[in-house]
């Protein structure tokens, strides 16, 4: 080998308590190359890279930079070797400006002068073509802008090796394209880019080589040009998987929920939802796409009675006999007592849906304790339900009496989704039900939801992966800053089209329509 690798890992092992996060992992990447690290959630990709960036320290193994062995004990050491990492959860201080965040932690011995620093930052943004207002505070920024700040921050520190952890998870397709252009510019600039991801099509689109990890172990490295989506999936999962969702044609659709003029205003006067109107049918899956925080949560909570709607809103529910029931103004309990089963998988698994310190049985009882007839708890039925869910959804747990907090993220999610579905709801609202799940479990959940649809349940599905939404949903509704910007057919929807609806302001769209009408 003539030229040493820019970064090389040999035999890296990291253990957290009794969990082995990385076992004997090797990896290498050259200058002027984009390496993708592919693996499912929990396969140890991020842990591995955190050891390179100094967040964790490996228990065993060696790290080489440009062929020389190095010891990285802190993020500061990593900077010294020109390694910079852009974390999935942005490490930015909300109340600081972009510039303040970028210069944070740098002590170059010169006099502290934020204006001088800003000039230097400006040089970087001009060179790579970033567009950003450096005086904007982080809390006023969009996710994409925050990510830009993170990347500039790393470049400002003179990093030659950039590690990006799931950079596209929060971006729209258009923003992803922009990011990829920047990454390619960096490759042309002879920088080394490592991108951690679990999205196959992105791997194929951007990387030169792919290293695959599974359950903390290194599996293989392949050249991207020689790989296919199917071959990568099999290497990642370790077995053949079918990536198909059974989507039957929706049959005898019945109006189940009719929502009209639903607006929600926050305490500080911010409009969270504005004039939302749509109809959800029994026997179909209505997908909701949008950048996170665009009002999805408020929409679901309004229906569930957890969020107060502004005056004039109307949410009509049709019960089995076809009677209209107005849900606005009812308490969550009243909505349930009326025999209207609205099931809701909150976005934050342990935050709202389950109690971490309670076991699976007791968590089942959170939904059913009111059915009890005596003052004493009857654990028989919840136990049966818990055991049924453990068996049917393949929940990995020592027993039904293990505290939920001790289960891995994916298994927690299964317990939660399983409980909600077991209530036989007529309207099932789910938000990000597969966040943190591996591919097999994700598809299990998709098919579970599909089955509910076949039984005539009306499903409202908030998702973040547009590919999945397109595959799973019969109709996809796009929400943008609290407004519905469009409802498209699931079978004919295009990702780019959805992306555009997610980002464009409604006025622009209205403007376009006017232009289109004028053209007629």
């Amino acid at each position, binding site marked *: 080998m003539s030229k040493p690798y820019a970064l090389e890992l040999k035999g890296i092992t990291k253990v957290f308590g009794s969990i082995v996060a990385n076992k004997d992992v090797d990896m290498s990447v050259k200058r002027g190359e984009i390496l993708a690290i592919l693996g499912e959630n929990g396969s140890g990709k991020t842990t591995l890279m955190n050891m390179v960036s100094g967040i964790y320290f490996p228990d065993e193994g060696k790290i080489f930079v440009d062929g020389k062995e190095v010891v990285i004990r802190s993020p500061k050491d990593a900077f010294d070797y020109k390694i910079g990492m852009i974390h999935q959860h942005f490490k*930015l201080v909300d109340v600081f400006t972009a510039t303040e965040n970028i210069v944070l*932690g740098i002590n170059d011995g010169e006099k502290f002068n934020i204006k001088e620093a800003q000039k230097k930052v400006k040089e970087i943004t001009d060179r790579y073509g970033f567009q950003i207002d450096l005086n904007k505070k982080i809390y006023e920024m969009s996710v994409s802008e925050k990510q830009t700040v993170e990347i500039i921050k790393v470049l400002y520190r003179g990093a030659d090796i950039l590690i990006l952890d799931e950079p596209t998870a929060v971006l729209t397709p258009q923003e992803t394209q922009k990011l990829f252009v920047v990454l390619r510019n960096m490759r042309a600039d002879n920088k080394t880019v490592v991108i951690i991801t679990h999205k196959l099509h992105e791997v194929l689109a951007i990387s030169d080589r792919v290293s695959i990890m599974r359950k903390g172990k290194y599996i293989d490295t392949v050249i991207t040009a020689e790989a296919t989506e199917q071959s990568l999936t099999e290497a990642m999962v370790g077995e053949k998987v079918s990536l198909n969702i059974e989507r039957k044609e929706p049959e005898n659709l019945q109006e189940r929920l009719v929502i009209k003029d639903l607006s929600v205003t926050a305490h500080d006067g911010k409009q969270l939802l504005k004039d939302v109107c749509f109809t959800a049918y029994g026997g179909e899956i209505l997908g909701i796409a949008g950048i996170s925080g665009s009002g999805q949560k408020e929409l679901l909570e309004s229906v569930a009675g957890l969020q107060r709607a502004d005056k004039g809103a109307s949410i009509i529910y049709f019960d089995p006999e076809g009677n209209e029931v107005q849900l606005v103004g009812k308490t969550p309990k009243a909505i349930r007592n009326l025999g209207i089963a609205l099931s809701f998988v909150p976005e934050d698994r342990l935050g709202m849906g389950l109690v971490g310190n309670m076991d699976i049985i007791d968590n089942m009882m959170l939904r059913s304790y009111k059915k009890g007839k005596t003052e004493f708890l009857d654990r028989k039925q919840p136990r049966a339900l818990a055991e049924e869910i453990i068996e049917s959804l393949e929940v990995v747990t020592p027993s039904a009496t293990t505290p939920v907090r001790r289960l891995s993220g994916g298994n927690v999610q299964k317990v939660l989704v399983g409980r909600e579905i077991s209530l036989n709801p007529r309207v099932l609202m789910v938000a990000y039900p597969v966040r943190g799940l591996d591919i097999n479990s994700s598809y299990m959940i998709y098919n579970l939801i599909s089955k509910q649809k076949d039984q005539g349940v009306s499903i409202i599905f908030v998702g973040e992966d547009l590919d999945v939404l397109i595959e799973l949903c019969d109709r996809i509704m796009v929400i943008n800053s609290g407004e519905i910007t469009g409802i498209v057919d699931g079978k004919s929807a295009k990702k780019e089209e959805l992306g555009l609806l997610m980002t464009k302001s409604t006025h622009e769209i209205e403007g376009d329509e006017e232009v289109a009408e004028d053209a007629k």
Partner: protein
Amino acid sequence: MFSSSVIITFLQRAVIQGIPLLYGSTGEILTEKSGNLNLGIPGIMYMGGIGGVIGAFLYENSLASKADANAFLAICIPLFSTILFSFLAGLLYCFLTVTLRANQNVTGLALTTFGVGFGNFFGASLVKLTKAEVPSVALTTTSAFFTKKLPFAANLGWFGKIFLSYGFLAYAAIVIAIVVAIFLTKTRGGLHLRAVGENPATADAAGINVNRSKYLATCIGSVIAGLGGLYYVMDYANGVWSNEGFGDRGWLAIALVIFAVWRPNFAIPGSIVFGGLYIIYLFIPGVSLRSQELFKMLPYVVTIIVLIMVSIRKKKENQPPASLGLSYFREDR
């Protein structure tokens, strides 16, 4: 209704009342900016006060005659013992909350209880040693050096009285508050410290030593707060220590932190407002002993109003540091 001389006296007394609060809240603001909610401040101020008393007591007892008192030693010995006591208290707090990651609220409240008990124990012991008839220790010789005013202050009428009639510790409080304000907003160190309090994981990833920042800010903050105790006993109380005399000033200092929306420069006028509200009952004719206490509530009422206003406006910059009260552990997942 009020003569000008009453108003001048009121303003002067308000400043004197405000200075210990200013010390306490400057120290607490510095501490809170590192993400440590040190509710031990009342105890630390109390310990700072008794520290000064012990120092002064030892110094006065070592003198053959009171006329031998040397200005430099009379100031430096109590000052040193105050700094030592409050520094150690801050160090204890840090060790428990930063190194051992104990709950900050519990640790702080325990420290307050401990500090008050500590002060009362040594206070009562000193009273016993002096064999005084009243339950207090008088250290007037040392105190005289602390209360020394500018020589020409008396000749300048109302101006001299309002602006120049204080001991040097009062001016030091204002200087320290301004220095801390500049440090927090204009320097690299301040930027780093604020980052630690807002988001320690970010600061850590940026290469800032989070634990070191927390230790430094909290210990220096404690020393500043401790000086408030020294000022109280040596200047305000003319060197007379009596147990529980310090009252609820420590809690007022913490309330002042909120009132000043975590800005030491706002705490300067804020402390005078608090000081004024604290003693206003003395200047309103016909206030009975019972209704006095209602007036003493005023600073807290004002704090609650400020809290309400700040939370209604929801301006991010006026909120407490985002990770206030939380301990940080890098490998926490």
